[in-house]
């Protein structure tokens, strides 16, 4: 087995354990918080018999261990139960709302990498000069406010005072796009409706930026710090002594080794966006998982809470897995971490 495959297997195993742990934790917490889900679901006029019947059908009258057993049994069949809020299977709800959130987070992640890393490289390359000071100031600003604050600020500035972007939503209502992947940016292209694609892209700019800003700042600062550390390494002086162009030294010889320590943090930032997306979605009325998540938490919709949390955790773990593989790909010292080279 190659080291990368072994790494993958180990990470998958760890991820599975984490997921089981998360499920236990959320399962326990959801049942410990006060309030009877059945009573909330049925409303104040429900009779005691009706409530007792619903409780029995949800296994709420049994011990928590038995309930967890039922949950795991259902989960193994891909069944997360029925949401008491929408009266639909939780999996159906998640399948409907998750793509919008994922789309937002992915676009924000791309922005974070596409803007944050070049800013960091520039900053390191021209350290101590004007460009560096500006970039450091901006990235510090980005890091120092949470994304929902940025959401409000960006919305006020660029949608309200300067109406350059739409104030809310994913796409203008006049477009009807058949949902294939659930990602509007992809579905519009599949439908061949370029106008709708531009409309969807136009809608996603502000929320994605609001979500990405702290990540951009973080990525820029990390890249700068790591690049400056790398700059003192003999191999950079060697590259200079061989007369490579400064841009090439920065973008290639210094950037690649510097990227490896930054990537883990960037991966964590990326995953953290999944959580931050909840608040940004709320500000921009983005029809994603957040509205659903908040609604089900307030209604103590047990199945839906657990389903949402599990999905978010799984996404978090997948992102981290990808980052680990990326690091292994970039860093030969991990790829060849064993003795038997060739």
């Amino acid at each position, binding site marked *: 087995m190659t080291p990368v495959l072994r790494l993958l297997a180990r990470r998958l195993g760890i991820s599975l354990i984490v997921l089981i742990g998360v499920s236990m934790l959320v399962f326990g917490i959801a049942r410990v918080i006060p309030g009877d889900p059945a009573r909330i679901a049925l409303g104040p006029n429900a009779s005691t018999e009706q409530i007792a019947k619903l409780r029995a059908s949800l296994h709420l009258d049994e011990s928590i261990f038995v309930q967890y057993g039922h949950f795991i049994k259902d989960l193994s069949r891909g069944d997360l139960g029925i949401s008491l809020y929408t009266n639909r299977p939780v999996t159906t709800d998640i399948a409907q709302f998750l793509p919008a959130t994922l789309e937002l987070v992915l676009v924000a992640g791309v922005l974070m990498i596409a803007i944050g890393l070049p800013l960091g490289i520039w900053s390191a390359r021209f350290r101590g000069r004007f460009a560096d000071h500006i970039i450091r100031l901006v990235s510090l600003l980005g890091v120092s406010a949470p994304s929902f604050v940025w959401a409000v600020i960006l919305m006020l500035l660029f949608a309200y005072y300067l109406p350059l972007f739409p104030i809310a939503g994913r796409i203008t209502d006049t477009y009807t796009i058949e949902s294939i992947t659930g990602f509007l940016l992809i579905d519009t292209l599949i439908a061949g409706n370029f106008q709708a694609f531009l409309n969807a892209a136009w809608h996603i700019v502000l929320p994605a930026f609001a979500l990405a800003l702290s990540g951009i700042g973080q990525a820029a600062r990390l890249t700068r710090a790591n690049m400056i550390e790398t700059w003192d*390494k*003999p*191999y950079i*002086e*060697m*590259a*200079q*002594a*061989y*007369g*490579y*162009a400064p841009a090439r030294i920065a973008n290639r*010889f210094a950037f*690649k*080794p510097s990227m*490896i320590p930054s990537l883990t943090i960037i991966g964590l930032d990326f995953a953290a966006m999944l959580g931050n997306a909840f608040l940004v979605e709320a500000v921009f009325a983005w029809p994603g998982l957040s509205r659903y998540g908040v609604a089900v938490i307030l209604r103590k919709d047990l199945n839906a809470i657990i389903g949402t949390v599990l999905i978010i955790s799984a996404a978090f773990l997948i992102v981290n897995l990808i980052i680990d593989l990326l690091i292994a790909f*970039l*860093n*030969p*010292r991990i790829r*060849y971490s064993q003795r038997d*080279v*060739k």
Partner: protein
Amino acid sequence: MSANRPGSGEDTGSVKNGSMERNSSGALLDIRDLHLGFRGYTGYTKVLHGISLSINRGQRVALVGESGSGKSVTARIVLGLLQETRTARITGDVEFQGNDMSSLNASQRRALRGTRMSMIFQDPTSALNPVFTIGYQFTEVLRRVDEKLSKEAAYLRAAELLHTVSIPDPARVLDAYSFQLSGGMNQRIIIAMALANSPSLLIADEPGTALDVTVQAQTLQLMHDMVATHNTAVLFISHNLGVVREFADRVYVIYRGRIVEEGATQSVFESPGHAYTRALMAAVPRVTGGGIPDIDDESADFHDPCFTHDSPIAGTES
């Protein structure tokens, strides 16, 4: 170990160097009255106080001095690296192949590096980038001269050059990373890289100091043979007088930013004129008295470290 294979390295030899030689004095590198200082928070610090040094084609010149004497900064000025440091103030003439380095701009100076002059650093393993293969780094060096060189051709050429520095399995080495290879192997790679484009000047800044003595000696011998093959002049920077004596034709002794003595290696070593040179030579550790130190077999302090004390009571002598 340092088998010299002149045949394989010569084809790119000193062909393109000849045309550049229009210096009347015949010197490849001519440094005259070089001053260097750094502006810092605490004021201006002078590092070099007027250094003059010249190297002829194919000549091996050593610059010897203690740490902080200004050896390495001189090398970095010749390479044109220090000129890009904003706090450095450099005056004086540095003429390379008849071109005044101070009249060149940064990119013109850069064009000389890696093509007509190159450098070998102290620690070969850390001088190679750990996240790129040897092959990638080597072919990049080859492309400094011939940008259109195809990947395959560059690899073949690199393998050929690695062969000239007695690397037995070049294909495997090209696919490896520096951390997978031994220090001696990396040093050979560095030497091959530095001479790959047949530069007319090689600057060796304490080469192999990080290696163990045997490997250092081997690689120095190899470097010695290789520069002879390529007819490359060397500015050899060292504090190791033993190595200098073996390697260099001519020696400059630098002390606190000034050249205090210069001359042919033989004459400097045989009759050092300056007190500092003599001090430097006296600092070389020597085995004197023919073997182990003179100590009585039964001297009182001889056995002291060998005793183990059974009882921990203070003052008890066994």
